[in-house]
């Protein structure tokens, strides 16, 4: 229990420091771009693969399992809403937590146990500014972009099943997509990922910087990051979904 409280405390402090240093000059643009490439661009294959097959399997299940309810005609509607509102954002975030979150904790953790973090401090630099800020910024920028891409690929996966497996005309599939999908869905789906990116980044950095106890410590912290980030994503997803649904119904209007 005290451990949990300490974790929250450390997270809050690091969040505050990150905000403070993020606006302080110099902006370390080079480091940020490098992280965007490493965390974002390098994750494209993984995220793309996950999205295509998730969209495809959704199409399959809608077409066959729900066919008794006449769902087969609405593959485009089902797949696009499910992918854009939930599956795209959540699965992308979980995959990024596994690939990037774990990587950040392992890297910062190894730096901590080899005194490199202390060396940064001793040389008059801030580990938050040098290490945490670039990774946080890169995650918060790249995760939403990756999610939009995943959304598109997921819907394309559904399109493949609709045309190749159940012989729908592509135009028909797209018409069904456009019938239900709104800008609001995209905004609420992608909007969640800013929060997911924050959770992944801050959990990964707190765990990495706090590593004690050599290689074993690094391993433990890395596992912990993936587990904690995944839990944070799933739990916050529920409340964020509620929040965005509330916003959509309250301020909805035509567009939403």
């Amino acid at each position: 229990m005290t451990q949990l409280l300490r974790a929250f405390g450390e997270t809050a402090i690091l969040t505050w420091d990150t905000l403070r240093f993020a606006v302080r000059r110099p902006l370390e643009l080079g480091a940020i771009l490098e992280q965007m490439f490493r965390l974002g661009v390098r994750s494209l294959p993984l995220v793309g693969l996950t999205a295509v097959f998730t969209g495809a399997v959704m199409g399959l299940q809608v077409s066959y399992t729900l066919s008794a309810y006449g769902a087969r005609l609405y593959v485009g509607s089902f797949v696009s809403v499910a992918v854009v509102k939930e599956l795209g954002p959540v699965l992308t975030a979980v995959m990024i937590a596994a690939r990037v979150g774990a990587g950040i904790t392992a890297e910062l953790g190894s730096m901590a146990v080899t005194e490199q973090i202390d060396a940064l401090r001793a040389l008059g630099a801030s580990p938050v500014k040098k290490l945490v800020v670039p990774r946080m910024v890169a995650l918060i920028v790249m995760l939403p972009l990756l999610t939009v891409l995943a959304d598109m690929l997921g819907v394309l996966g559904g399109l493949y099943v609709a045309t190749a497996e159940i012989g729908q005309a592509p135009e028909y599939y797209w018409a069904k997509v456009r019938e239900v999908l709104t800008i609001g869905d995209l905004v609420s789906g992608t909007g969640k990922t800013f929060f997911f990116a924050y959770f992944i980044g801050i959990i990964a950095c707190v765990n990495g910087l706090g590593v004690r106890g050599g290689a074993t410590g690094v391993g433990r912290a890395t596992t912990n990051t993936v587990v904690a980030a995944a839990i944070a994503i799933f739990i916050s997803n529920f409340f964020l979904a509620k929040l965005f649904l509330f916003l959509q119904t309250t301020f909805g209007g035509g567009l939403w």
Partner: protein
Amino acid sequence: MNSGRGADMPVICRDASGQPALICIAGVEKAFGGKPVLRGIDLDVFPGETLVILGGSGSGKSVTLRHIVGLLKPDRGMVRVGGVAVQDMSEDELIPIRRQVGFLFQGGALFDSMNVFDNIAFPLREAGWEERQVTERVPEVLQLVDLEPQVADQMPDALSGGMRKRVALARAIAVRPQAILYDEPTTGLDPVTSTTINELIRSMQRRLGVTSVVVTHDIDSAFKVGDRIAFLCGGRIAFLGTVAEARSSTDPRLRAFLEGRPHEEFEPG
């Protein structure tokens, strides 16, 4: 800009002749998880001198050194550098002090994501040196630690342990700090390189007036580079005196340590 020496910082601790101490440690206690490591350390380091801290493995030498630049905070007691109390300072406030005090880590602590050049350039760039000055300075310090200029392009994990240590030393002295803290500068080096490093520490002191604290358990090196010796044992300074005094000291713990005999009081706690 880069050679600012901060000489006009206010000073508190003084020696008998009234000379102000550059580094002043008073009554510092530190425990980790309830296990006391330092039980009240008093130590002054005066400008231009080389103070050697001797002590067995695990006696708290590295911990003591870390307190000086605020990498660790004492549970009790006071640490002043140039008269400024560092124990309550925030990380931001510590930056100017850390730029004045070079730190050689026991394991080198090179950044393994950067090559040797960028490692040595790191503190220079942080201190706002221009790139032109940096490219001049890096080969210069490499030469000081007896490394070829070609080493600059290598990554740290391609270097031998001894070379890594020398690169770390080059990084620590690159900004021409006013004081340098060496954590076991010669451990793991061959005798020839050890001599080079000992002479480097000496010449930094003679030529540039650098104040040094050298942690070591290499007694040879301690007597070669030190002006004064402090012997850390049981969480306290068990002996403090000049090299000559250390040689002729009759303190049983120091004698045992110098002669390499075991002594029950070496174990802390």
